[in-house]
């Protein structure tokens, strides 16, 4: 069950194009699992920015005197993330978490492929560690537009059986997209599950690659959210249920991790006409 706590900034450091923010998060870090996320309040109590910002939990630690702490990776895109990037040690930030449905881990010792786009690699670190602890083979692919926008390459190299890097401009690793190299990697290790976090087009292609190989895919989406706790209904996307019916599901509580074969990727941003409760055409 999520809790709301005041977190103290322990560290806020630049890593490549990103900021890694370390916060005390008593009651949150202890129960966080890979794929969970937190939301952070922006701008303090008098802020004119009302919407919380959501971040995948990157790491959790038990740091002696601080109790539980956690790290999130922030890409600075606008005023809210700028404010977070400017926080200093001892500043206080309102945290709610852990939120969402985490990645589902396999019961068997199967080979797993992990795919991260940009700072979408952030939640894969904890995941890789836990998969390895279960005896699963872990092959990681990370990609970004350019070298600076990759996150955590050195650490991932330590966690993974193999690490493959792609960049759009070829500045590091292979030139191209993560999904260009994914099929070959999955085939080589006979991956039974692929875990992915990154932009929608990447997740769509990952889900296709998995399906072509009859592998499971677990995709963590990055939808715009206002509340993160399931009450605002802004972060929806079309997902097919076990009954075959498409519903607009909230990525904050029914996700952010979805089975790749259940999301109607090509229809994200629309209401497919066969969705439960879709608008009826005029005249019908």
């Amino acid at each position, binding site marked *: 069950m999520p809790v709301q706590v005041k977190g103290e900034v322990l560290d806020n450091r630049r890593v490549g194009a990103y900021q890694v923010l370390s916060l005390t998060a008593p009651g949150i870090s202890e129960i966080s699992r890979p794929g969970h996320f937190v939301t952070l309040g922006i701008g303090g109590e008098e802020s004119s920015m009302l919407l919380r910002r959501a971040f995948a939990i990157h790491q959790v630690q038990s740091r002696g005197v601080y109790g539980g702490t956690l790290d999130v990776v922030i890409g600075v895109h606008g005023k809210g993330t700028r404010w977070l990037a400017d926080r200093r040690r001892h500043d206080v930030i309102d945290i709610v978490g852990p939120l969402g449905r985490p990645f589902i881990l396999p019961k068997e010792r199967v080979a797993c492929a992990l795919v991260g786009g940009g700072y979408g690699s952030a939640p894969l670190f904890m995941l890789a560690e836990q998969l390895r602890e279960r005896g699963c083979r872990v092959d990681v692919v990370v990609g970004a537009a350019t070298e600076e926008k990759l996150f955590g390459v050195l650490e991932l190299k330590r966690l993974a059986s193999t690490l493959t890097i792609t960049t759009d401009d070829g500045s590091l690793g292979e030139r191209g997209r993560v999904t260009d190299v994914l099929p070959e990697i999955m085939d080589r290790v006979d991956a039974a599950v692929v875990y992915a976090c990154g932009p929608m087009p990447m997740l769509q292609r990952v889900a296709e690659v998995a399906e072509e190989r009859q592998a499971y895919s677990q995709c963590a989406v990055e939808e715009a959210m206002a509340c993160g706790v399931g009450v*605002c209904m802004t972060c929806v996307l079309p997902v097919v249920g076990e009954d075959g019916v498409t519903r607009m599901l909230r990525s904050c509580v029914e996700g952010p991790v979805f089975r790749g074969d259940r999301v109607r990727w090509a229809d994200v941003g629309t209401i497919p006409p066969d969705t439960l409760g879709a608008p009826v055409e005029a005249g019908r």
Partner: protein
Amino acid sequence: MTRALISQGPLPGDEPVPSIDMSTVLAGVELVSPVLTASGCAAAGRELDQFFDITAIGAVVTKSVMLTPRSGRPTPRMAETPSGMLNSIGLQGPGIDRFIEHDLAWLSDRGATTIVSIAGGSVDEYAKLAARLRIARGVSAIEVNISCPNVENRGQVFACETGSAADVVQAVKRHSDPRMPIIAKLSPDVTDIVSIAGAVVRAGATGVSVINTLLGMVINPDTMRPHLAGITGGLSGPAIRPVAVRCVWQIRQAFPDLPIIGMGGIRTGLDALEFVLAGADAVSVGTVIFHDPSAPMRIQGELQRALVERGFGSLSEAVSYAHRPADAVPEVDDVLDFISE
């Protein structure tokens, strides 16, 4: 009767607030507190019950439910704006049958006081919704949402015209238990909100909720197109608070005894106090929940503290207090207390 008051100054932050009577009677419904959730900002209570005890606030006002399941509008459905946000959800929901079976049953089992918000595309749909709720358990009042701006046809914003507003309220009234309080939720996007309030009261509304969101729009400077998939959306949050306080004030002036739920950008106990002083018997807390999921409980505590600090002995003493005559004088006892300090 002259009520309180000389400010007794702020209480120290950690000092327990003396307990005063925070209960309110809203359209015949006894509420333990005047702080409610605002429709559309609390779903059906379950999610927020993780953060505070939803039975400890005045009532949960549920997200507007329609007759049949509704997918809502495409994404993006929201945009952050200065001290506010635009939403364009389009009334996504499970439909009344599943709502009664699933959400209302849960609220009732949980022991929450529940005000059910209903929305329809036609007068007939509102009538059918009222008829379904007539046989449901756990409904303390019905809030009739005639003012949602996120509908395809602006002609469906019944609250923009006296005739259509009255038609809907009359239909709901006729199909509900005669004792069921009917609260009409009004839109600020009208020339004269007092005349709309008058129309719904004459049609049988027991009270009014003031206000729904204002119709707004954001254009994305990067794509140079409307940011919301629905093009327009409803503006909420502290940015609209002065508009909301004005609407409550105007309606209270025109209808001294009409039950009013005030809402629009309440973020703190002092914001809630503004609405109470302007004439609200109860307040709904909405968009701030997205910022702070514990907000209804926090605001309830802050409001109580604010009332005590101003010398009010109960919530009811403060309702409409801003309307007192300019020459009203504080009670003698309070003046003496003040002088002796």
